[in-house]
């Protein structure tokens, strides 16, 4: 590598200071990477559990709606679905994990009562109610899983970026600076030897 640096004492002092700063930054970034990774691992195990629960709830909900369709008829289930007046909503708020802004998802109106379903107490069916309950439960789980998934994705992006920065500092920036430092030191020593030799020659004359 061609070193385009001035072999002066002030440059050496500056370089030493910059190496120290870079090493501090490198240590901090390493701590951040490890912290993020720890957070990620904890969330990941929760996410795996949530995913398994989601699949199980989905199977139960599908079973419930199939049963309702078989007993009450597809048309009755469809008309019950059209009559419903309660609509689930989600609110996404920002949350901070070690400097990473992650979304915090909060659901509202996720579950509905028999009265919200617009069918009345007499006109309704227990099977359709059960199917609706199953899907309300599924939506609750979906909201939770969506929050965790979005958080994991953000953490993953940040871990990857931090990992790249740490690697760049460890294998490129710091070694290059150290190389420049040793180049200046060697050059200064050489200049000093030349100066001593010149003085000796001058003295002998």
């Amino acid at each position: 590598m061609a070193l385009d640096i001035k072999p002066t004492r002030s440059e050496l002092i500056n370089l030493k200071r910059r190496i120290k700063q870079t090493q501090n930054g490198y240590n901090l970034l390493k701590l951040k990477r490890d912290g993020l990774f720890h957070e990620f691992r904890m969330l990941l195990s929760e996410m795996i559990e949530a995913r398994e629960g989601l699949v199980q709830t989905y199977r139960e909900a599908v079973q419930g709606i199939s049963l309702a369709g078989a007993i009450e008829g597809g048309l009755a289930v469809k008309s019950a679905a059209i009559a419903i007046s309660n609509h689930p909503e989600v609110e996404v708020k920002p949350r901070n994990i070690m400097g990473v802004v992650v979304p915090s998802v909060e659901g509202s109106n996720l579950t509905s009562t028999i009265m919200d379903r617009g069918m009345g107490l007499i006109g309704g069916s227990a099977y359709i109610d059960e199917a609706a309950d199953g899907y309300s439960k599924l939506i609750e789980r979906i909201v939770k899983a969506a929050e965790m998934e979005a958080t994991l994705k953000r953490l993953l992006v940040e871990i990857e970026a931090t990992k790249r920065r740490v690697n760049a500092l460890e294998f490129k920036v710091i070694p290059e600076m150290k190389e420049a430092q040793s180049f200046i030191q060697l050059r200064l020593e050489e200049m000093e030897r030349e100066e001593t030799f010149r003085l000796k020659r001058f003295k002998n004359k």
Partner: protein
Amino acid sequence: MEIAVVGTPEFTLGFQLAGVTHLYHPEGDEALADTMRNLLTQKDIGIVVLDSANLTLLSDRLRSRIADSITPTVLGIGTEEDNTLRESIKSALGVDLWK
């Protein structure tokens, strides 16, 4: 923000029963891809629920866009397992931690 559900009418019926109003029934792979692209740009949608069997019908590019999207977050559910997050972890960290 709302929840949107994409899939066959049979898949979305249960969600309609739970009160979800944003239901999409695309027919064919192209229509599915267009619907997903459209939903990814909508600001009022917080979560998109997709039949995980449909995820395999999408192109790799769109799948990676879905995997990276945070708002809306796309969740594949169904009897087939949704591996998008698992694949993202594998490509980002180089190890399969989903165990």
